[in-house]
């Protein structure tokens, strides 16, 4: 609660919260908010030459290259975009924390092996790995979620690992250990609570990264499958119209930037609030 209060006191973070809330509302109530279904190709939605229409009274943000209402697609697009960003990142943080804490707590050959595997994953060019994984399975919303999670857990693992190591050398843990406390007790009662601030910060900042990864995958045509809109695949579909109909690209990529910016603002504020010593790049 105190954290929330502190967040509210920071204007920028508050702004970020409001934006995210607005996106969440759009996503949840899209069918009621959006003026048209996201996949309806309007008969009057294209010029005679088959070009998209500019913004007008009927189509507030214009139409896309298939004669669909861009605003409706943006609103529905919040669904897939948020699902990927939040769920993929949650999974990534969960995996990362599990690996990091386990490795940090176990130490020895087991922990070392886990961290070597993490190093291995760090060495992969993330986008390349994601592209390959996406090509291996037929891409769908959930495959995209899993692919991104599989690529993004590594950072969290490294951070939690370092934290766990330094925590377990602190007196209260060594004391618990000498008192004969079991591993679960040490892990859940003592280690995890201390890791919460770090994890929260990384989870928030990670959502920004995740939504950008989704956007890039979709931009390359291997993300969320059409006609389900995501902001990333909307850019992909319309990218060649950048010069002719810039709104087709600017609105969705602006939404992506706004979403990532909001999560970054909150993450930044959380970092300041929760742990002023955490600095630098995540």
């Amino acid at each position: 609660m105190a954290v929330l209060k502190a967040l509210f006191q920071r204007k920028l973070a508050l702004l970020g919260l409001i934006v995210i809330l607005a996106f969440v509302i759009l996503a949840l109530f899209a069918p009621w908010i959006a003026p048209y279904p996201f996949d309806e190709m309007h008969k009057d939605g294209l010029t005679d030459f088959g070009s998209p229409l500019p913004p007008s009274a009927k189509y507030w943000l214009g139409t896309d290259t298939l004669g669909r209402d861009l605003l409706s697609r943006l609103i529905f697009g919040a669904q897939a975009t948020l699902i990927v960003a939040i769920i993929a990142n949650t999974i990534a943080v969960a995996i990362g924390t599990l690996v990091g804490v386990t490795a940090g707590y176990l130490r020895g050959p087991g922990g070392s092996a886990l961290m070597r595997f993490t190093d291995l994953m760090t060495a992969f060019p993330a986008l390349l790995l994601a592209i390959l994984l996406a090509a291996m399975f037929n891409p769908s919303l959930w495959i995209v979620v899993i692919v991104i999670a599989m690529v993004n857990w590594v950072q969290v693992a490294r951070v939690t690992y370092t934290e766990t190591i330094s925590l377990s050398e602190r007196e209260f843990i060594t004391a618990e250990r000498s008192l004969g406390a079991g591993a679960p007790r040490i892990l859940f009662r003592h280690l995890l609570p201390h890791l919460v601030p770090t994890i929260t910060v990384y989870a928030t900042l990670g959502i920004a990264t995740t939504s950008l990864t989704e956007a890039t995958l979709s931009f390359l045509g291997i993300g969320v499958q059409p006609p389900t809109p995501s902001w990333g695949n909307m850019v992909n579909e319309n990218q060649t119209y950048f010069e002719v109909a810039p709104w087709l690209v600017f609105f969705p990529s602006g939404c992506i930037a706004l979403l990532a910016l909001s999560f970054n603002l909150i993450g930044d504020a959380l970092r300041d609030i929760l742990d002023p010593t955490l600095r630098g790049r995540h």
Partner: protein
Amino acid sequence: MPGYVLRRLVQMLLTLIGVSVITFLITHALPADPARQIAGRTASAAQVEQVRHQFGLDLPLPQQYLRYATGLIEGDLGRSYVQRTDVSFLIASRLPATLLLMLGAIFCELLIGLTAGSVAAFRRNTAADQGVMIGALFFVSTPQFLVAYTLLYVFSNWLGWFPLSGYGTFSHLVLPSVALGLLGGGWYARMMRSSTIEVLRQDFVRTARAKGLSRTRIVLVHVLPNGLLPIIAMIGLDIGYFMSGIVVVESVFGWPGIGQLTWQAIQTIDIPIIMGVTLVAACAIVLGNLLADLVAPLIDPRIKLK
């Protein structure tokens, strides 16, 4: 120290072997048949088998990997199925362009990041500071394709300041470098701001300022030397971020680097190129990480190389 480096190098080697195994497994699980791709549409079943045999694609997977690994030791990355050329040649011919682009991007990152960061620090808590910091965060949050396309249309197409696309002269390099470097520039700005603020707090700097030492001098003499090491460490880590960025940026600007090669190879499932690029990129990333780790103890004496 030499012992540490040696151990890290061995570790790196193991990592790279791991990367090659995993990439090999993934690429061979892709649902496409290279033998049929090579043999062409007119090929009979027998011809396809012939090709499969000739390229060793009929061997059991572990054996195929061994063949590949043996080649690697001799510096042979195999031959592209599509281009029918040595992968090492293809990568080598494109590596300079990508390295140049990376250098350009690092330069932009530093130029933008260090300037913006120190400006913000000197005007701490003013509108300028806030503006710079939000701007930095904005670039950190903006998809690279948006940045790339915007730069292309504004500065090349409308204003005509830079060539639209291509490679070769300095002016070709500018926009792609900026597109790739803006993201990192945002990070450097944030970092530079905090290290400058720290230096400015120190007594001797306060005195120097009171005596009229210019801001530029303070940054050059007092801030940068301290901030240099973390910057070097970050550049080491940048390489990994760049690997993703170049696929997008090179394709928008028609830059003849690894990124375009990779993307084409993925589209045609040209497995040897995908493998080769992944390995080269992994090498670069691992070396970058090593650089970052070697620099770390110099920054913070509490960190020891173990």
